[in-house]
């Protein structure tokens, strides 16, 4: 941009460091670097001094000490004798769980709302506008505590399900219970047993594999899940092969063989057979004593956080989707129509591929926001990374510096991973120009 026309030669004078454009940028950068290092040094020396005054040392030994607190929702086995490191891992997994489920739900709701906002139906479009403005303009923390209050205050207590004429009843054929202590849903189980633990059928599950012994990152792999997933993936691959064969036939003869049912069957049938062979059944929740037993217990804190985060983010995603569709000029639709493409195909072949290019980058940054906002879990007592590592672990060990720094670094790593994925995608779909 700048073209330096300084005279060549001459002796070097110190003032040239500032006034000679050949050296000036180096000078500025070195001064900036020194200033930055001084700032860091100042902060570090203050910290060392303060910690020494408080009689604290810096170290990560606390991570191997027993945590001594319980985590009510855990994805791997954990008890209070496990180390702080494992407790933090539970927190991280909970964060990732609510983030992933939140992203999925937010995308579904957001796309539907965004498309409906463009609907020809005036009333539907207005309702969607109200939804978007309502969620966008109220803090997400308020939505989280609000959903928590709704779950606790409006749902019936488990005792309401008891008695001859209960005031509340379970949904979907006695398999889902909405209570103010959480939602109970059926849980997938393998190999039905009778009361004494004897198998009732010859079809049995495969059990778990225990990995990594007693290390803090140990985990069990469910063999049923592995078998089921590999069958499913194999089915999808075969179905894709069938699709490719259909493409070839279409390209050579112009007639596309009907493959929909075949492709569906290739995916579904083997998976169902495998599930049946492993003795798959759903363990339904049932009322025992004062509470529900069996099934999977989705806690209020999880549901409130999940709903609030996904509905809040969905409002933003809806705007992104709407903007993306509006960004495609009408000429594209008209040109496609002029080529004789049918309206539904216009959407899937012409508009959406182009709109995706506009939609995806801000969409991913919304995923990023949702993941970061999931740290508000602490407001409703959901034990995510903030609740474990930066919450109870911090309070119990008094290691503010290490705990807060580790939490920040973990979140940073998640964010960088997401935005890295976004960059890869962006480069793939970028219009190749010039």
């Amino acid at each position: 941009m700048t073209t330096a026309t300084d005279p060549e030669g001459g002796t070097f004078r110190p003032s040239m460091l500032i006034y000679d454009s050949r050296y000036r940028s180096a000078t500025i950068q070195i001064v900036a670097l020194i200033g930055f290092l001084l700032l860091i040094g100042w902060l570090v020396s203050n910290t060392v001094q303060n910690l020494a005054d408080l009689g604290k040392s810096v170290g990560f030994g606390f991570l191997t000490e027993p945590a001594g607190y319980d985590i009510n929702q855990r994805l791997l086995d954990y008890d209070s004798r496990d180390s702080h490191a494992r407790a933090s891992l539970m927190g991280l997994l909970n964060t990732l769980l609510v983030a992933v489920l939140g992203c999925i739900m937010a995308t579904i709701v957001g796309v539907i709302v965004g498309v409906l906002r463009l609907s020809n139906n005036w009333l539907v479009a207005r309702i969607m506008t109200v939804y978007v403005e309502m969620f966008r303009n109220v803090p997400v923390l308020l939505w989280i505590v609000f959903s928590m209050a709704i779950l606790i205050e409006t749902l019936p207590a488990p005792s309401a399900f008891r008695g001859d004429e209960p005031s509340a009843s379970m949904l979907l054929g006695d398999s889902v219970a909405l209570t103010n202590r959480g939602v109970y849903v059926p849980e997938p189980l393998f190999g039905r047993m009778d009361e004494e633990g004897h198998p009732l059928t010859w079809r049995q599950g495969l059990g778990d594999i225990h990995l990594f012994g007693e290390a803090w990152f140990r985990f069990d792999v469910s063999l049923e899940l592995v078998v089921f997933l590999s069958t499913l993936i194999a089915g999808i691959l075969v179905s894709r092969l069938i699709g490719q064969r259909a493409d070839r036939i279409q390209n050579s003869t112009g007639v596309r063989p009907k493959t929909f049912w075949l492709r569906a069957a290739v995916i579904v049938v083997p998976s169902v057979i495998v599930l049946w062979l492993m003795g798959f059944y759903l363990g339904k929740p049932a009322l025992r004593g004062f509470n529900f037993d069996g099934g999977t217990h989705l806690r209020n804190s999880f549901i409130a956080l999940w709903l609030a985060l996904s509905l809040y983010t969905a409002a933003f995603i809806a705007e992104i989707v709407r903007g993306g569709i509006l960004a495609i000029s009408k000429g594209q639709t008209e040109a496609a129509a002029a080529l004789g493409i049918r309206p539904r195909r216009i959407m899937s072949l012409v508009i959406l591929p182009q709109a995706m290019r506009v939609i995806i980058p801000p969409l991913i940054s919304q995923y990023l926001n949702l993941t970061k906002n999931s740290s508000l879990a602490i407001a409703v007592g959901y034990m995510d990374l903030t609740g474990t590592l930066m919450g109870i672990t911090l309070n119990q060990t008094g290691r503010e510096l290490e705990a807060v720094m580790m939490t920040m670094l973990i979140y940073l790593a998640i964010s960088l991973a997401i935005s890295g994925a976004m960059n890869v995608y962006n480069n793939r779909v970028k219009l190749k120009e010039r």
Partner: protein
Amino acid sequence: MEDLSYVRTDMLPERDPPASEVGVIGWLRMNLFSGWFNSILTVIALAFIYLVLAAIIPWLWSPTWGAGSLSACREIIAELGKEHGGACYGVITERWQQLLFGFYPEELRWRPILTFIGLFVALAPVLFNETFPGKMLWFTGAFLFLAPWLMWGGPIWTPLLVAAGPALGFVAYRYLVSVIGNLASVIVAVLIPVLFWLFLVGPLSQAIDGVVPLGIEVVESRLFGGFMLSVWIGVVAIAISLVLGVILALGRQSDLLIVKYLSVGFIEFIRGVPLITLLFVASTLLNIFMPPGTNFDIILRVMIMATLFASAYIAEVIRGGLAALPRGQYEAADALGLDYWKAQRLIILPQALKISIPGIVSTFIGLFKDTTLVSIIGLLDPIGLTGSIRADANWNGIVWELYGFIALLFFISCFSMSRYSMWLEKKLRTDHR
């Protein structure tokens, strides 16, 4: 042409369009019942609206403004014979001032109100630069120093001395520029106010106050709370982060590698971590990072972290503005022979900042909503206050009225700001699509 049996010789009069195509019926047919699918959607939507309103309106309509406690509310509602209960507005009547001002002393509440009004007057020439005269910018400048004084109180001399800092720097620049050259005098002009603020303002203002005591009552920041706290944190953080954001954005766009990577590192770090972790830094770590003996109070620490947080986002907004300027502007500035700072000051930044205003407003909305997070580290913003109100035996168990009131306050302010931002975007978009 003689074999034609009939040729019309006069024009037919224009006929009215059929009744089903115009007016209310036409509109209904066009927008609500244009096909079977749309008709089904309309019916579902109507049913949905009816269900929601039927649930909410009877609850909302509840004459409990005078009730002094939740049980009093329930008595009133029971007397009216309502089945599904009703809202208990007594808590709003009793506590709305607390929700707005926190524990700010009652007789001094004119000060935050005055600051709030002043904020609008100060922002008017920036936000509506065509309607209001540019001379009002002088008030905006003065307001930067007046507002903190009004909020926290203390001797009048402190804001005056703080304002004197930049003036001193400017005077120094004027005198030194011919003696030691441009760059050196700029450095001196920046250093003088900073050193002056750090070392001289405190003692000087105390000394003058000892001679001429003139000031208003000091209000400690732990008394700040409610909606006022949210607004105050948001406004202070955005105001300071504008300066930091411009510097960071220029740093990120700069050709100097080290400066660029320092800026990128800072921006990406702040944007990559949740605000709540930064607030935890404020509540647990910031005093450890400062020299021994420093003790900022928690609200000040939160403001520092919120400012750093906002400056990363503002930097990205301004970078967007810088990138949106046509390349010709940069080249034209170069062609005129302007150096980097002159080009930025006279050509680039005025345009880039102007097109960044909608983005800055959105960042402010986001930050303003995020200030509710301070309730997690124990500050009494509106959400934090709901806890302390519920701790009162009279209002134990009240939920919806408080959340509804807070949500309404946030909705009104955020919605109007986002409308302003959209209006401005429309005004700034000069290409007509």
